[in-house]
């Protein structure tokens, strides 16, 4: 065995994982599908969405913030975990106002594609229909809070040119919202707006005036719902 690698078992399959990496990273390296929403590429994991919850030694653990250890046995796609993940997706659907047919992100949306993957028809929970705002005051970016799932990818991954934090989050509980520093409007350039839209797994951050460049039917998940790893086509 290569140095720095350890053996772990995921759904009965023995694989090699790099020491110090997370369960999600190990699964990804071994092309095992483990759903994620808040986890994104090289960003430090946040653990907000809990979609990657797995079972280790009979205990539920988040795959993104739990490191692999020698001989670890991970349960990933059991009926129990699939139902839990579906439940979490349904919670997100009822907690916000997600109207896929009129959303620019439809077909590229990771929440939508995961809902297809887990065969969500109607959420098991009642819709909460919250009153949420649309913030349109920035020249290049629209914040559609109705669709935000508070994954905090933008907060962690989008910075101003000088490295300053532009995105943050305010309030708490179900009132928690993503916010942008409005005192430096020039900092939010078209490039940064595009980056924000690309990092957003849903349609909460939308680059203004360039909608629907890729037609419906030709988008990432239009034909292969959520076989994606890391928000990209496999």
């Amino acid at each position, binding site marked *: 065995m290569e140095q720095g690698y350890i053996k772990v078992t995921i759904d009965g399959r023995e694989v090699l994982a790099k020491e110090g990496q997370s369960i999600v990273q190990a699964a990804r390296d071994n092309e095992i599908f483990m759903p994620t929403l808040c986890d994104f590429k090289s960003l430090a994991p946040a653990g*907000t969405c809990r979609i990657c919850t797995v079972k280790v030694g009979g205990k539920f653990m988040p795959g993104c913030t739990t*490191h692999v250890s020698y001989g670890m046995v991970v349960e990933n796609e059991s009926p129990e975990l699939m139902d839990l993940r579906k439940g979490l997706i349904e*919670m997100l659907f009822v*907690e916000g106002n997600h109207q896929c047919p009129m959303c620019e992100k439809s077909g590229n949306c990771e929440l939508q594609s995961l809902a297809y993957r887990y065969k969500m028809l109607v959420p098991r*929970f009642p819709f909460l229909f919250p009153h949420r705002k649309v913030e349109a005051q920035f020249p290049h970016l629209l914040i559609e809070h109705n669709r935000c799932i*508070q994954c905090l990818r933008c907060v962690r991954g989008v910075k101003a040119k000088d490295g300053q934090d532009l995105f*943050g989050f305010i309030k708490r*509980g*179900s009132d*928690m919202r993503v916010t942008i520093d409005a005192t430096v409007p020039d900092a939010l350039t078209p490039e940064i707006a595009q980056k924000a839209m690309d990092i957003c797994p849903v349609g909460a951050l939308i680059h203004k005036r360039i909608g629907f460049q890729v037609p419906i039917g030709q988008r990432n998940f239009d034909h292969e719902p959520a076989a994606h790893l890391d928000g990209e086509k496999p």
Partner: protein
Amino acid sequence: MADNALQTAVKGIVEKYHGDRTELLAILLEVQEKWRRISPEVITFLSEEMDIPRVHIESTATFYHFLSRTHRGNYTVYLNTSATAEMAGAAEVAKALEKEVGVGFGKNSPDNRIGLRTTSCIGMCDQEPALLINGIVFTKVSPARVKDLVEGMKAGVPVRELLGEPGDSNNSLPQIQAEVQNHIRRKGPVFFTDYIPGAALKKAMEHGSLEVIEMVKKAGLRGRGGAGFPTGQKWGFCRAAEADARYVICNADEGEPGTFKDRVLLTELPELIFEGMTIAGYAVEAKEGILYLRAEYGYLREHLEQTLASMRSRQLLGRRILGTRFSFDIRIKQGAGAYICGEESALIESAEGKRGQPRNRPPFPVTAGYLHKPTIVNNPETFGCALKIVLEGADWFRSMGTAASAGVKLLSIAGDCKRPGVYEVEWGKTVRELLEMCGAESPLAVQVGGPSGTCISEKQFDRKICYEDLSTGGAFTVFGKNRDLLSLVHNHMRFFQEETCGFCVPCRAGNTLLVKALEKVMIGNGTARDLEDIRKLGVMVKVASRCGLGQTSPNPILTAMENFPELFQGVVRNDVDYLSQFDLNFALADSCLLVNRMPSSSTKGEE
């Protein structure tokens, strides 16, 4: 910012704290206190002055319950809405407040003189209904007294002058001046007995630091906050972590509804707690300690500061303690209203001046805690126990309690009983014994360990209070036979809905959905299937949540359903699987009332 005077004043506050990033919460609290709000202009100014990104300041300023971007009134009234307050008649007090002030809760009087807000448990369960006015506690408030209080506020009387008779013992000290009662009902060998300042510290130094940790381990001391982690092991881990600095934090953020024993400890025995922290500091080789005091206990701050000063003057704290080479000092950091800060990593974040949001673990605080240095976080009671262990020996401590729960526990007993208050008891007492002790005559249920604990019925009154059976951080709340248990369960679920930090999905959305589901059952629209769905959702929230809050938040409803099945069966429809129709008159009742119209007969619903 146009207002130069405001700018100068805010600058003064920042300078007082040397612009220290970790003091942001203290700075925000002062701004709130002075201007009754934290305006967007002040946030921008603080960002420039302290060189912190604006979004970080806004993030902290909007997280805590006692901080606000809008004006909270020159007198801000925070009425406690916890279950024991509800039982003691907080609803009538709320009505009286609304009537006298002339506005509803969540609003200010038109002249911004008085603001009415509700708040989660303020640690006065044995003397409800209780409320805070500008940080000062008022207990056993009756609707009649509300009239006097509001009149006083309208006339501009300083809050202190509205206070009634001072409470017992230290509560009447000039530096506290509170109308709070201690209600110490049962004294025991650990806390409410003789205490000679410095004796335990001296003994600890004779033993040496490693030996102190060994003693605490051998005594079997476990964390008194509720989680019960072995204290000696925690101290051992912290000491073993390589670092140039280590910290000792005392978690005095007693927020679990139903518990108030730390309030009494801080009032009567602050020196014992501080000396316990100093012993811990000696054991883990730390030089700094922090007492994280919940905002609701801010009225004790001056008393605690004076105690620290007195200890410094007697060489029990500060440089060269007791003439040795060991130096250790303690400072106080105050919260701003957030139950989640009782979670140790959230508390650390808050002590650093940030949102009180739990961290991902690993790393644990013992290796990377405050400022990412090894840190131990313990409950005040735990520090007190450790001090007594050093003084009297591990065997002495072990000889009390049960096999897995050594020593004594301070219980906060409240609710439907004749003698609510603080009881020092050995671990292992049965619920029945305690009910007798506090004079509970016809108990229906006991909430052990607060909402995050267990709601038990009479069938389980022979169970024991200890880690291996019914664990508690101190709360023991009695619900009498005359109580509507569903409404109390609802109160507890609302508490978690209010106090979730919102960071992770299951806790943020799940708790709201649990409240909705319970409300559906409570108004008679539930079926047996709804109960099963509630149970499944509750389990989901427990297993998928990120920290202890979400992992225990469904407990009020789950344990009540388990132990009072007949209660839930009694309110659901058993004749149908699914209620496909609804009573239109009932559904429209509220809106009809609002527009002053009787439900029309033509809209009569069909059932």
